[in-house]
């Protein structure tokens, strides 16, 4: 029982921590001069990277 609670606790904490941090990250605007960063990356085939060009067209 303790193990199941511990499992849910650890995974739940980490998951919600990630969600909170991601939310704040999305909300903070990038400092000026950083618009080019997103475009200057030409992508290297690692599609799991957050900055891969293929993500930008699918984002709504």
């Amino acid at each position, binding site marked *: 029982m303790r*193990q199941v609670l511990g499992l849910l606790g650890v995974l739940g904490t980490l998951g919600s921590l*990630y969600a909170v941090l991601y939310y704040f990250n999305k909300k*903070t605007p990038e400092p000026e001069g950083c618009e080019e*960063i*997103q475009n200057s990356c030409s992508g290297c085939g*690692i599609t799991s990277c*957050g*900055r891969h060009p293929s993500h930008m067209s699918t984002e709504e």
Partner: protein
Amino acid sequence: MGDLLTLFLSTVLIDNIILSHFLGMCPFMGVSKNRSSALGMGFAVLFVIVGASLLSYALYYLALVPLGLEYLELITFILVIACFVQFTELFLKKFIPSLYKSLGIFLPLITTNCAVLYVALDNITNSYDLAHTIVNSVGVSVGFMLILYIFSTIRERLDASTPLKSFVGNPLALITAGLMALAFSGLAGLI
């Protein structure tokens, strides 16, 4: 003290994470086109590896072991790394925008980098204490940065040359990496 120094030297030069363990190859091929991006990537990796491995070390010994949940280490370490990268981006955006400008582009790439997860797991597998953990993490990242920088300088020269058409780009880069591995393996007698 000598123990820690041996560990540092072996992770940087002899048991190098790229040339000996073949980890971190994805950014090695993709980001090493010029020197400045190699340095940027190297520093970003240094920061993330040290931070994430310390956090996962703490999480393992303070939460997973007391609860008997050691089998969760893979999932929790990955989540810790992802959280840490998000936090780093947030922190840099708010407080050090200049650093964000130079390093920010590489941060999402490091979440799925083999090297970060390897260091976090390695610290647990080898049962390092805190001092060894720190030295291991710093050593691995310094080794990564060193090889990445050297490779980017070689690659700048390679891009200006004209090899056979089928060798252009990555195949030649791989053979160069092999020669570098051969060169660095000669340092094995250092310790």
